[in-house]
């Protein structure tokens, strides 16, 4: 254990370390890979804490993913419904079926209409029975009291145009009444408005949550690596060098967290598939609950990773500068 001062040392000038350009960029790349791997290894050093953080992240990322999927499903559902405004033309009861048929064909040529459907008197009766709560009632009637109905879909959905079209159709002699089905739209709009507002509230909160969790975790890691930062700065580390491992930590947290989130969303959806499909069946809809597709999954993972890096970036900036040797 004795010190060896006698050893021969070459003159310093000649030995001075010079790093060439090619060498530098190769070194730079290698350094990045190294730092990234070290950041990953570091996560496994404290497995419990890391898993805890990842779990929180996964949950926070899964919830928007979940929301996203639910919205997707509602959209799919609402395609099954008829979301376009429509005008119901109740024909006079004395109009014959043949004439009703002809009228519907004439309307098909009308430029302002994108679709025409004839519901003749028998069909109307059947549909009515299946929809209404007063189902049993009609079977009590001796004859079919229902008129034929022509359902038309206006091409122009603006309120003014719709009203004008309604007036025009009302003036057809065979038409007893032209009812513009605006309540339907109003109801759907209310639904959508509510869903939208709710989505905003929740998405805002959760995006914030992800940033906060990553930021907070990295900030704490940074606090616990204070000594290392101090020493590194003392021996000449730049701010970027000190910051790099934390950015990579953010990257890994984001990436792994969102992978977990992806799994979580799929599992949660699987759990509610049973009841949801049962419900859909009651409405005899051909709705099938869908999981996250590949694109959405990639978006989820990209967003998570991006938020992770951003969280690392935000939480290190000012704070790293504040850790100065003294």
């Amino acid at each position, binding site marked *: 254990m004795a010190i060896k001062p006698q050893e021969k*040392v070459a003159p310093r000038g000649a030995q001075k370390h010079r790093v060439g350009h090619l060498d530098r960029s190769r070194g730079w790349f290698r350094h990045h890979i190294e730092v990234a791997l070290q950041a990953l290894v570091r996560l496994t050093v404290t497995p419990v804490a890391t898993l805890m953080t990842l779990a929180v992240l996964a949950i926070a990322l899964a919830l928007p993913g979940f929301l996203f999927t639910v919205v997707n499903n509602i959209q799919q559902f609402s395609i099954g419904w008829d979301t376009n405004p429509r005008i119901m033309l109740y024909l006079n009861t004395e109009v014959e079926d043949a004439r009703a048929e002809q009228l519907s064909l004439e309307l098909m040529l009308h430029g302002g209409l994108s679709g025409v459907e004839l519901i003749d008197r028998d069909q109307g009766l059947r549909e009515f029975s299946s929809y209404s709560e007063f189902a049993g009632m009609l079977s009590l009637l001796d004859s079919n009291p229902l008129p034929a109905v022509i359902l038309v879909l206006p091409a122009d959905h603006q309120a003014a145009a719709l009203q004008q079209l309604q007036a025009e159709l009302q003036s057809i002699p065979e038409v007893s009444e032209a009812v513009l089905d605006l309540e339907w739209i109003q109801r759907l709009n209310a639904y959508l408005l509510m869903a939208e507002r709710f989505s905003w509230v929740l998405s805002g909160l959760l995006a914030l949550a992800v940033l906060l969790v990553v930021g907070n975790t990295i900030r704490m890691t940074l606090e616990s690596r204070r000594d*290392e930062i101090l*020493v590194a700065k003392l021996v000449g580390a730049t701010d970027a*060098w000190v910051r790099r491992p934390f950015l990579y930590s953010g990257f890994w947290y984001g990436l792994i967290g969102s992978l977990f989130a992806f799994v979580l969303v799929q599992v949660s959806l699987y759990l509610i598939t049973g009841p949801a499909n049962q419900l859909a069946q009651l409405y005899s809809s051909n709705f099938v609950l869908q999981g996250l597709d590949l694109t959405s999954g990639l978006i989820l993972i990209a967003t998570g990773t991006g938020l992770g890096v951003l969280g690392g970036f935000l939480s290190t900036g000012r704070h790293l500068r504040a850790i100065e040797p*003294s």
Partner: protein
Amino acid sequence: MAAIRFSNVGKRYEGGFDALTGVDFTLESGEMAFLTGHSGAGKSTLLKLIMLMERASRGQVQVGDQDLNSLSRRNIPQHRRRIGVVFQNHHLLFDRTVFDNVALPLQIAGYDPSDAARRVRAALDKVGLLMREKQNPIALSSGEQQRVGIARAIVNKPAVLLADEPTGNLDPELSEGVMRLFEQFNRIGTTVLIASHDISLIERMRRRTLVLRGGRLVADGY
């Protein structure tokens, strides 16, 4: 050329305490000197000014041809890479091996790993700790830790070497050895400044000695 020049330097810490007042001296390139004085005299403060761990409140500190007052934050890392420091409290990292501790300055400067490894082993060999390279510094005695700190300071072959109480935890024999090591570096051109209380050791070395008292330079000679 002057390696380190203090011109009427004063350092007042927050709270109004004057740790240094009107300090004036020049250390030529390739010189070796001791810095001594009572506890709290300002030795560590003086070394911190050179390292830019603190900035002077008054006067001018110059290292090489660089005036430190005009050095921006961004350029501090480059400045520090030219200086090797042995700290009073060793400042070792207990989350990595002795080898990695010594390799840190080389990693930061972007040395090639195999080149770095060679240099690290050479430095550890000089302080007699080559066979401990794979251990965690926490498993070392205080004296051994101090020698790891010395290895880290010299691994970079810096132009200036500062040491704050480098032998505080060493037995007389090892202290002697460390001093010889510093002398050897000095012989190949490194400027060396060592803060120490060990008056008998300083006397034996017969080098220029700067004496601080209450923040003032009260003696400068052999």
